[in-house]
């Protein structure tokens, strides 16, 4: 009997420990009482690379410091879910794709999109030009690569739209985060980000010619054109803390610095390439310049100003999240997002502040570079 009591006590203790480290209740936040430089932690969704060049530049060029913020960028990785890190109070802001973050919200993560940095989707599905795949309907019966981890819903939406059931009409294969499976022919079509994996294809040598592959060697399905694009990199804030005037002010300052950082990378792509390489990106300099340039294309020109959430884009993302089924018939969301899922209140203030400082926040005259990739991205 005594032993059973001890076991029960141990279980209770463990349960208390778990509840202590992750309650759903909002925790009071002390904030920055001293009025000096506030430390702000930002959880990125992937390793340091030019996808985050604007944030890196804002740190390195002192745009956050001008706002009185000491910003610490935290590297992401395969197993890191930025919105959960944010919801658990381990970061002040997080960078995450909208559908995945909305799924976490539905599970109780108290987060709000306060800045939609990428206005367009950077996800492609790439096949060899001679594969006979020229549209989503051609994926029928093929081995279709994707990364999983919730990055595959634009692809599933496109297949659904074309009348394919992702569960039975194709063979789904989870890709590694390189393009070897496509290049070796293990899969017929591979998921690729315009700014990263697609460049890896163009940095690879075609064994038939001994030269690098060219865009003509591939067919690219671009979800922006297909119509199943979903919103990607957004800045998420802690919803419960948004009631706190100090956090509101900090949010505007953080967004202002971020706008300046991205405007700097639009106007100085080479500098941002160097900053990304210096931050520790693993792929080389030509790859990072390609990445800065492609990421710029996802942001600029921005008719409403960088970071402003477009209601039509938001509505489409939510609708696709509700309607698109994965291979097991599950959707990203089961209901419309409740509460404050997004707000333009803070980005509007930040856009005003940045414009007042002479920053071009729409980039209407933006013209992308033509980047030459070197073998292996060097």
């Amino acid at each position, binding site marked *: 009997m005594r032993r*059973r009591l001890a*076991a*029960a006590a141990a*279980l*209770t203790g463990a*349960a*208390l420990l*778990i*509840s202590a*480290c*992750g*309650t*759903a*209740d909002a925790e009071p936040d002390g904030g920055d009482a001293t009025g000096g430089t506030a430390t702000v932690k930002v959880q990125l969704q992937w390793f340091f690379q030019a996808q985050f060049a604007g944030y890196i530049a804002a740190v390195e060029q002192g745009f956050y410091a001008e706002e009185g913020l000491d910003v610490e960028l935290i590297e992401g990785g395969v197993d890191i*879910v930025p*919105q*959960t890190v944010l*919801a*658990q109070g381990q970061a002040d802001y997080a960078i995450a794709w909208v559908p*995945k973050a909305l*799924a*976490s919200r*539905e*599970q*109780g*993560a108290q987060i709000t999109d306060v800045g939609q940095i990428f206005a367009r989707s950077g996800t492609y599905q790439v096949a060899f030009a001679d594969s006979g795949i020229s549209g989503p309907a051609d994926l029928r019966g093929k*081995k279709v690569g*994707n990364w*999983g*981890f*919730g990055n595959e819903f634009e692809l599933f939406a496109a297949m659904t739209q074309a009348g394919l059931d992702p569960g039975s009409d194709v*063979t*789904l*294969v*989870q*890709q*590694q985060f390189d393009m*070897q*499976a496509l290049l*070796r022919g*293990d*899969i017929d079509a591979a998921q690729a980000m315009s700014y990263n994996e697609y460049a890896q294809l163009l940095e690879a040598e075609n064994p038939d010619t001994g030269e690098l592959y060219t865009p003509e060697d591939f067919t690219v399905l671009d979800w922006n054109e297909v119509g199943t694009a979903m919103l990607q990199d957004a800045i998420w804030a802690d919803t419960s803390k948004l009631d706190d005037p100090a956090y509101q002010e900090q949010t505007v300052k953080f967004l202002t610095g971020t706008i300046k950082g991205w405007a700097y990378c639009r106007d100085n792509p080479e500098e941002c390439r160097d900053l990304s390489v210096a931050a520790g990106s693993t792929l080389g300099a030509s790859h990072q310049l390609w990445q800065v340039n492609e990421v710029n294309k996802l942001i600029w020109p921005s008719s409403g100003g960088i970071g402003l959430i477009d209601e039509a884009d938001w509505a489409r993302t939510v609708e696709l999240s509700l309607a698109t089924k*994965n*291979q*097991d*018939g*599950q959707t*990203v969301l089961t209901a419309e997002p409740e509460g404050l899922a997004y707000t333009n209140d803070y980005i509007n203030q930040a856009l005003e502040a940045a414009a007042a400082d002479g920053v071009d926040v729409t980039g209407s005259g933006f013209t992308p570079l033509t980047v030459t990739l070197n073998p292996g991205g060097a």
Partner: protein
Amino acid sequence: MSLRAAGPPIAVGLAGLALWEATVRLGRVASYVLPAPSAIADQFWASRAVVLSAGLASGTNALIGLLAGSVLGVLVALAVSRLRLLSEVSVPLAALVNALPIIALAPVLNNMFDAASSVPRRIVVGLVAFFPVFVNTLRGLRQVQPIHQELMASYAAGGWTFARLVRLPGALPFVFTGLRQASSLAVIAAVVAEYFGGLQDGLGARITSAASLTAYPRAWAFVVGACLLGLVFYLTTLLLERLAMPWRTRISP
């Protein structure tokens, strides 16, 4: 196991689940941290068809890998036990294979073989299953009683006859000890190997996919599926052990 013996563990298990449920409800633990057992049960029931088909996919990989690894383990043990020199180098070598972490092996094998096939996963399972079967079988083969050895020598029995009639039956309890360890390991290896890409048809792929969408009750439902699969493998091995050695009534390890 009698009903009397099964009572206490079941009671403790149920009490644990009740406590878990109460903690989540009263302590209001966010479901992205720890879902309640009732939420997991709901998801398990709602996804039962998918859990079954995914379990069959992972289970097939585990079974094929387990069979291949076990047969190889027994054969290598038979060969090695005959040759003293081989025997001395083989155990450290096998230990080396055993020390290979799945997380290092799976991506390498995915690159070596067609990533869109199940072959790399089955090889991972095979390698994981090989070690316990090999080491235990080898130990069993070395326990031949001198009197049996002399008897077979007096009959001028050949190597294979000797192995078939004396050494293997004598080693059978040890073989099954290895198999029991390997059966659970095989399921774990098959599920973990799915974390590194390849066909999205099994339990491991479902767990990562659900977890990345913060759908933890669903992720846990597939974890429960993996536990049940491991249990099926273990109990099947116990049953085979009993059938193969009816003279040994003891079934608990």
